[in-house]
């Protein structure tokens, strides 16, 4: 790779330097395109700053890598399986709309209006999550609106590092309130078998089916665990192939981007509470393993609840946070008319993370 890039390096480097000097000497250009150029430049080139205070060497790991790892894991976890199950036309168009509207329109506009000096990498993660949590047949404008809302909402609260709740989930909550009918329909049945040209493009078009959780709610039907694990049962675009999500989530845990305490406590508490409830109430509640493998739980536990900014910082508080997510999820799934509760539970625990955090810090330091 190094050899490949070597001949073009001086050319790109020089032209970037030239553009940079133009931008810095013309205030109007800087006002409009400074942030966009900064983001692009940041992807290609390293930082110019040197250390001025102790310690004088720094680790070779920055926020860009941190977010890049999440992006890679999400591509493996949901984009690749979704390409097979739902066809590339569905997946690629949604991703394009989400990225263009979210990052390149809303975020850039915000950077211009609010005079931010850079575009944050976190926007890519949010925009990659938006199509994943919407139904496969949701219209493109819905995806675009979701991405715009997510980025706008995050920026209003002060950008990456200050957001109170997960922006992707907040925007889905907003869409659920505004367009309820669009979010309960459009669950396309995943394609199974050898892909041909047609299926590779469209999947199994126009065949919709209720999600396993809705089916259980209406007629007590429990989908096969294998189909839930592999991804051949219906659901939102990115949540169906649990196997890929679990594997990529484990990889994220291994490289310490995701804190293992949250998925363990979240999934563990769902298991504990659902076992407890099914012992008391029998068949009236969903079986424990079905609860873990259905809906957006795996996606939520590995990618949404673990968002470090909205989770608690203290390690002990992470256990409470995860357990709270699991408890609320089981409660909503079993005792309300809603089929799925992952979104609400994570959003609620995001808000509760602040008091939990300060309580645990008070206990730890006895202040």
């Amino acid at each position, binding site marked *: *790779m*190094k050899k490949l*890039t070597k001949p073009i*390096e001086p050319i*790109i*480097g020089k032209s*970037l330097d030239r553009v940079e000097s133009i931008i810095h000497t013309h205030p109007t250009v800087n006002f409009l395109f400074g942030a966009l150029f900064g983001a692009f*430049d*940041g992807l*290609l*080139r*390293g*930082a*110019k*700053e*040197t*250390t001025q*205070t*102790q*310690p*004088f*060497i*720094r*680790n*070779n*790991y*920055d*926020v*860009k*890598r*941190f977010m890049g790892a999440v992006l890679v894991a999400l591509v493996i976890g949901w984009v690749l399986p979704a390409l097979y199950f739902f066809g590339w036309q569905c997946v690629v168009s949604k991703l394009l709309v989400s990225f263009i509207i979210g990052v390149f329109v809303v975020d850039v506009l915000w950077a211009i209006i609010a005079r931010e000096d*850079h575009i*944050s990498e*976190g926007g890519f993660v949010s925009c990659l999550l938006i199509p994943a949590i919407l139904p496969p047949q949701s219209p493109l404008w819905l995806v675009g609106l979701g991405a715009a809302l997510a980025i706008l909402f995050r920026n209003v609260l002060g*950008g*990456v*590092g*200050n957001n109170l709740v997960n922006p992707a989930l907040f925007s889905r909550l907003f869409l659920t309130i505004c367009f309820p009918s669009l979010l309960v329909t459009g669950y396309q049945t995943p394609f199974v078998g050898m892909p041909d040209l047609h299926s590779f493009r469209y999947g199994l078009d126009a065949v919709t089916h209720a999600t396993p959780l809705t089916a259980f709610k209406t007629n007590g039907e429990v989908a096969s665990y294998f189909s839930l694990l592999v991804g051949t049962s219906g659901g939102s675009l990115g949540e169906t192939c649990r196997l890929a999500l679990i594997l990529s989530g484990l990889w994220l845990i291994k490289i*310490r*981007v995701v*804190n293992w305490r949250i998925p363990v406590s979240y999934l563990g508490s769902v298991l504990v509470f659902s076992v407890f409830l099914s012992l008391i109430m029998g068949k009236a509640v969903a079986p424990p393993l079905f609860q873990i493998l259905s809906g957006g739980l795996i996606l939520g536990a590995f990618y949404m609840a673990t968002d*470090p*900014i909205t*989770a608690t*910082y*203290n*390690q002990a508080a992470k256990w409470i946070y995860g357990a709270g997510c699991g408890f609320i999820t089981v409660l909503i799934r079993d005792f309300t008319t809603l089929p799925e509760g992952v979104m609400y539970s994570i959003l609620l625990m995001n808000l509760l993370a602040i008091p939990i955090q300060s309580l645990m*810090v008070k206990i730890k*330091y006895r*202040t």
Partner: protein
Amino acid sequence: MLKEKENIGFKGGFNLSDTYPLRFCNIIERISSDGIPEVFEFRVPAQKIQHVIVNLCPTEPWALPNWVILEHKTSAFLNKLKEIKTRYLPEAGFYIVINKKEDEPVSAVKDYACNAEWMKVFAVDAKYPQDDPVMLSKVVLDIEMDFGQDTMTQGVLILDAQTVTAIYENCMLGNKVDSRFIALSGTGLKENEIINVQLGTSLEKILRNRIKESGTYRVFVNGPLHGREITDLSQKMDWSINNIVVLEELGKKVMFPMFKSDELVLTTNMLGELRRCVYCNFCDDICPVDLEPALYYHSYKRGEKHKARLYNLEKCIECGLCSFICPSKLELLQIIKECKALDKQK
């Protein structure tokens, strides 16, 4: 008596030698001073010494390696130590800390320890900052020490291998000790080497003809993590300098940094842009004394420096690992120092 412990004392710390593998040239050059060299003198401390910790486990890759002093004759070194003990510190307990990954000293010390009741041996992981006085006294003696406190006040004397041999030469044999070994390393040098320098030599003379001609460089003594930067090279060598690290400055943008990690490490480049704290927990995972540096950062950012004191701030040993690991490139150590300074003013 041999005690072997995994990760004793703390969960954090960082294995620097995996990230920065440095190899030194075997030939040791001698550099003499232009003026009259200073002489090393050892005085028996006035306080009563109860414990002596001999640290044979340097945790930083740029520190002076053990083989230079021990010359693979560990038992001879321990004999010297025994003589020092019987003459000067007959009542003190001796504790030898060795790196459990170095096979030769470990086996030699093990063999020796079988017949020696006067010393205890600790084989530890060479994780930075294991050799910090606070960590050493906590791990070896279970004595709580404050950062910056003189260990003598608690009756603990911490020696490194080179000081032990110097004491032996000076006090037991009566020779004049006026030179010491120094490890020279870093990306700004042509070659990593070990030199024997007379005390009082200027750093300029040491580094002459050793630094790469191209590019700018910065000079640090006692390591870039908790050492200090030297801007005035006319400064004289003294006994406290263990190593000199010369790093490339690299104050420019490098194309495609993701493919060039080998060129970028061990330079003073920030290796990333300043961002807001993303609560990634890297700083409290790596902290050797189990603190949560991000809490100080948030107190500081809200303008409540005094609140940082509530979170065990005084326990910080200023090893710099939190700033080192931070992916958002926050100056956590600087913030901690500022909050501590506020504490002192009050």
